[in-house]
């Protein structure tokens, strides 16, 4: 631990670099996660309204034909 803290006279610059990197990557990661969650919620809402994609409708009708 002593070695970790012995960053010399420029410790402020070193710590600032690690904090900036953590902040930028953390913000980007959080944005990607939030964007994904928002998109999945909106897709679910559309599907709940009965709106489906063409490929989903085709899969459903194929399954229906196979079942009949």
């Amino acid at each position, binding site marked *: 631990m002593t070695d970790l803290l012995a960053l010399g006279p420029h410790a402020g*610059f070193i710590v*600032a*670099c690690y904090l900036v*990197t953590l902040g930028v990557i953390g913000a980007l990661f959080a944005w990607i996660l939030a964007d*994904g969650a928002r998109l999945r919620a909106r*897709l679910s809402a*559309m599907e709940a309204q009965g709106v489906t994609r063409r490929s989903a409708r085709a899969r459903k009708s194929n399954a229906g034909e196979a079942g009949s």
Partner: protein
Amino acid sequence: MAILDLANPTRFLALSARLLPWLFAACVVAFAAGLYMTFFVAPDDYQQGATVKIMYLHVPAAWLAMMCYSVMAVSSLGTLIWKHPLADVSAKAAAPIGAAFTLISLITGSLWGKPMWGTYWVWDARLTSVLVLFIMYLGLIALWRTIEDPIRAGKAAAVLTLVGAINLPIIKFSVDWWNTLHQPASVIRMDGPTIHPTILWPLLVMALAFTLLFFVMHLMAMRNEILRRRLRTMQLQAASARVGVATSQAAE
């Protein structure tokens, strides 16, 4: 499964969902090992002292900034030549990640420059060409947001990305072609690295961790972009259905 089968977005979503937890775990392990080596194994540099620890962030971020743009350039070829369904999804998803790594490279370089060079910034060839790279990332993000149709936006961005790729060799060789304050390459050289192994190995492990982080975030962002396009298609379907109902009611 042939590699081209991954061109199907549904298959890509299924495969990436299986791959992501493993990649994320590998990324966490690589960062844990890299940071341990950085703070507890790697010695201080005989000239720079402890500020060499900035290198373990700055150099991988700079490599990733260029690798990310290379991924976008290859994806742009996929868009323009092969019209690969996932190519412009890949390019669009990579742009914010590339911008973030370039920003980290610029800020950490600046914070490293002050104690070592005596200045945060100089307009030399390496620093300026990396700043141009950052501005190009922002320009491409803006272009994608300006054109509503993702297919048209993808083609326009692909052309701009390929034009901007000329900046990559300029960044790489700027330290050789011009007299710059920035040091020349010391890892990827024809005659091998000039860094002592006790400092080189932590750097390589941190570079691996950053690369895995890029792939994790890129896959996640690509999945988001596929969902965004599906949502857009469904919204257009819903809107056209509403217009159809309104037209038939008006006709009655």
